[in-house]
């Protein structure tokens, strides 16, 4: 023992952290952490089946079931693809947005959720600007809640569709995944990690399939402690070095709406982290380029890269509809343990 070190602390027994009661409803998808790899495999397989199914057969699967889309933030891709997914399975959908509902009058999330349930909603798809909002809604309603993005926290269907996109290119035909499926694969997530729910869901999901996740960005947008979020995560602040190791490159938008006073030197950022054709050719000529959208051409990536042959950005959008069909189907057809009707 070092004599100058403080006296060794007594080993004290302290209260245990709480056990999570979530999810209350087995049909919910709040976090990628709630999905076993068997469930991920099942969702991937169902996405393919549903995508290829005859539309007239498909729309009987959830015929006239009621799904509510509750959106507190603007969205193009997520909202539209969830809506198309639910509708193509035959469900009735209704959209409630914060700008055209009683939310504007001050109704709480809990009360809005209870109202939707009373209106007959059997599942709620929630996009919200506060981290954890989906947990609150699920606890309040006990309905299947599909997290379509909660604040800076998670966006599980985005991670699933990103996985499907990666698999389609790196391991075509793979649907059954396991702990080594992506062994040897490195995916770099670049940019505004701090404010990104897409980054969090991906960094929690991909390592469970054996992938290595590299996080790349300036300290303002990527604190060192991000590596503690889970296993298989590392930080590589040198963009070129990260690119050189990557089979997948996930570019992120700087989330101006969440910066909360943080000053970002955009010119400096572009100089260091913008994905340009030159950088891609030199350091990662065969890597797949992903972006959850919305993209800001000329900021995090150049237009040439966005439209270039390595870009899977629009493909991701297509995978989004398939994945969301599988997730909505699961929400309304999964059997409740011990529950009857």
């Amino acid at each position, binding site marked *: 023992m070092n004599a100058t070190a403080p006296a060794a602390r007594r080993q*004290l027994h*302290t*209260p245990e*952290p709480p056990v999570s009661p979530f999810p209350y409803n087995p049909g919910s998808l709040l976090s990628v952490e709630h999905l076993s790899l068997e469930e991920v495999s099942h969702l991937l397989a169902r996405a393919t089946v549903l995508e290829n199914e005859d539309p007239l057969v498909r729309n009987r699967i959830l015929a006239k079931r009621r799904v509510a889309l509750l959106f507190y933030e603007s969205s193009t891709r997520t909202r539209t693809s969830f809506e198309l997914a639910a509708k193509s399975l035959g469900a009735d959908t209704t959209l409630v947005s914060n700008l055209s509902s009683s939310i504007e009058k001050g109704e709480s999330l809990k009360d809005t959720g209870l109202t939707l349930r009373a209106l007959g909603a059997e599942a709620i798809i929630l996009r919200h600007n*506060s*981290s954890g909002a989906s947990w609150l809604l699920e606890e309040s309603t006990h309905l299947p809640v599909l997290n379509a993005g909660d604040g800076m*926290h998670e966006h599980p269907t985005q991670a699933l569709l990103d996985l499907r996109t990666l698999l389609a290119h790196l391991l075509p035909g793979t649907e059954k995944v396991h702990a080594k499926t992506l062994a040897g694969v490195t995916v770099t997530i670049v940019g505004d990690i701090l404010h990104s729910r897409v980054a*969090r869901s991906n960094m929690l999901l991909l390592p469970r399939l054996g992938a290595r996740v590299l996080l790349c960005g300036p300290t303002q947008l990527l604190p060192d402690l*991000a590596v503690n979020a889970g296993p298989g995560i590392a930080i590589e602040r040198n963009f070129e070095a990260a690119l050189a190791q990557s089979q997948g490159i996930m570019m992120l938008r700087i989330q101006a709406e969440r910066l909360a006073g943080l000053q970002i030197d955009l010119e400096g950022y572009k100089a260091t982290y913008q994905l340009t054709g030159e950088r891609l050719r030199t350091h990662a000529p065969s890597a797949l380029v992903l972006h959850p959208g919305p993209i800001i051409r000329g900021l995090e990536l150049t237009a040439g890269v966005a439209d270039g042959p390595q870009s899977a950005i629009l493909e991701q959008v297509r995978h989004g509809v398939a994945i969301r069909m599988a997730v909505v189907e699961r929400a309304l057809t999964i059997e409740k343990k011990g529950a009857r009707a």
Partner: protein
Amino acid sequence: MTTLLIRGGQLIDPAAGVDGPRDVLLKDGRVAEIAAAGKLKPIEGTQVLDATGLIVAPGLIDIHVHLREPGQGYKETIATGTAAAAAGGFTSVAAMPNTIPVNDSPETTRWMQAPERGASVRVFPIAAATRGSKGDTVNDFAALKSAGAVAVTDDGHPILKENVMRETLAAAARVGLSVIQHAEDTRLTQGASMNAGPVAFKLGLRGMPTEAETSLVERDIRLVTDLRDARVHLHVAHTSTLGAIAAVRQARRNGLRVTCEVAPHHFLLTEEHVGLYNTNAKMNPPLRSAADRDAMIEAILDGVVDAIATDHAPHATHEKEIEFERAPNGITGLETALGLCLRWLHREWKLPLGRVLSLLSAQPAALLGLKGRGTLAVGSYADVAIFDPKAEWAFQAKESKSKAKNTPFDGWAMQGQIRWTISEGRVVYTHIA
């Protein structure tokens, strides 16, 4: 006033150095006589409490509570808050000034103590240090003191301006009042809702760095040092960081009059207890890392901490059933403090019972200069907590005497159950088994 005889109990009065079987006679709101067990016989009209197998202790003193009146009676009233205090064995509570309006006047200070408030136990107002707790203009402390204020603070609105804090410390010292600081450099905690660290990152929540607390404690201690006036007393509210405790420890070594309190949640829970956005684990200062929590335990065990205070902060249920980032800070604490202190500090971590009780009575009384409180020496106020030290029970929030149910300790195992609480000679709480 009735005469009360407490017979056959084990009297533990740390301030008087007593720990043994004693009979205690209470008369006219004061302790009239202490005698060996079995020596005191009731005369006609004396109410007798059989304390066989029970501990008889000075009524507990919580120097940090929010009673929400005036202004927010829907959260708590002085009547309901002090009923909860009585149920928890507390006979004195010091009420924070973040009421509506802010208690920055002798009128509000007196209003809070008026009999019409229906308090079960003694309420000692802590007045605002500055006008409206805005941190600019120092209040008239002499007038506030004569109205009954026992200390000054801007609690949730820490005094950031150095000159204002210096003036507050000096002016309070001149009239013999303590200055309590909620140490938080709010410039570092904008928009944050839990402790900064890996848990906050994973939950996608903005974090409050420990430096925000530690740096302000260090700054305040520097101001106390520079004032070179032995009358200056700085009390650090709800200490939660390893660095803040270290600063207080050093200040004491340097002979400064700097004291601190720790809340049960800060010596029991960590940021992990936020779980998945449990708003009943949201308070300010937030639950910190395990290293910070362990530092609180160590500081209690080795005597650096002067008082356990609950920071009882009631909120209406609907106010906590919202998004974590938007939910108000605070949890209730009056009914769980003794049970948690006995369960953990005493039983688990072996702090002698006398020291646990001292942290909950004699020391806080001394800290705020509450004369005749925190002891059961003859002539003191007849403030008594009588409890069964062996009883184990589970706290049920829905049965709380407080209006509010916002506690992370719902369902938790408690050690030691209050049987009677006596405030100035009146039985204000009786446990019905």
